[in-house]
């Protein structure tokens, strides 16, 4: 649907933007969290060994 940027949007349209906007941010955020966790795991293999050895328990 093409929005008219120069007219006042109906409330259901702006509510849709609110919901989709927040959903979009949380989806991208979740993707970034997963990647950081993965990066930490890949690039810090020593930390995992320490944890299994009980040092960080």
């Amino acid at each position, binding site marked *: 649907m093409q929005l008219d*940027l120069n007219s006042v*949007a109906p409330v259901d349209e*702006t509510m849709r933007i*609110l919901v989709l*906007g927040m959903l*979009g941010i949380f989806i991208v*955020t979740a993707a970034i969290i997963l990647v950081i966790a993965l990066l930490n795991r890949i690039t810090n293999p020593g930390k995992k060994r320490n944890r299994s050895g009980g040092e960080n328990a």
Partner: protein
Amino acid sequence: MSAIFENFQNLTWQQIVMWCIGGILIYLAIRKDMEPALLLPIGFGAILVNIPMSGAVTQVINNVKEIGVLDVLFEGGIANELFPLLLFIGIGAMIDFEPLLTNPKLMLFGAAAQFGIFFTLVVASLLGFPLKDAASIAIIGAADGPTSIFVANFLNSNYIGPIIIAAYSYMALVPIVQPPIVRVLTTPEERRIRMEYTGNRVSKATKILFPIIVTIIAGIFAPRSVALVGFLMFGNLIRECGVLGSLSETAQKVLANLITLFLGLTVAAKMQADAFLNLQTLMIIGLGLVAFVFDTVGGVLFGKFLNLFVKKKVNPMIGAAGISAFPMASRVIHKMGLAEDKQNFLLMHAAGANVAGQIASVLAGGILLNLVAK
């Protein structure tokens, strides 16, 4: 002789009011130390462009168009989004993402604290602003000047001047705006929750890969944010790569200062009395406050919501640091934690949420553009 004084006849009371507003901005910058790098040039620029027949802005005199230097700077630096993007290289080079990388879950607080942006879009629309202006006003809630300029300009908003003034003013007012909201939303027990800081080190490889991967992810999900995110992350890559120390220092100091200098003055080109002094400006100032308040509400309530499910409770106050105003918001939360319990050191957690807010606010700008300017 009359030629010397004839310009007095062109002076209007509205222009005098704008001189006063410019004077107030300069006063706040110097005496109250409120975002002086921006508010001082903006304040001076407000006076500069409101001198009758000011040669600093484009005028039509005797049917001849005389181009003003501030309009040249606006076309060359803001209308094409160049200044905010270049400034983002400097900001990226200044930010240390380590507190976030050690605890990536803090990203969620950055996301939650963007609620004010989308809430304000709804309110601004209800108040009668067209969609492009409602979205531009809403982005004040990004608590990030360059993002506000980028979005408002991209949408060709009629209110870019007041939007930028509101954005920078509220960023400076974070220590005044946030604490009462946080106190209302949290109990003293919640404010005293201590959070363990593991102090885990992050590998250099992670620090280098992080800006590259965030750019790719943001670009795929919200392609309109990729210029903002990309320039921010490029600045961070320069900082973290370890072989461009001189460039990193230049980006943090010389580049950021130079762009800030021009940005403030150039923004003032949109502060001419006839465009600035109206009811809409007052409404935008009010809506800016709504955006900041609901950003804070979103962040804090998300912290409380999270506590319903997790074993290790989080201090919900760090949700308020999820707004982008960096590093002010994290310092405010750290101080509030210490005020409740002198041994409660929240700075690293708040800083993590705060840098997450920097990324999330840029993403929010890009997602907003994706949703609105289809």
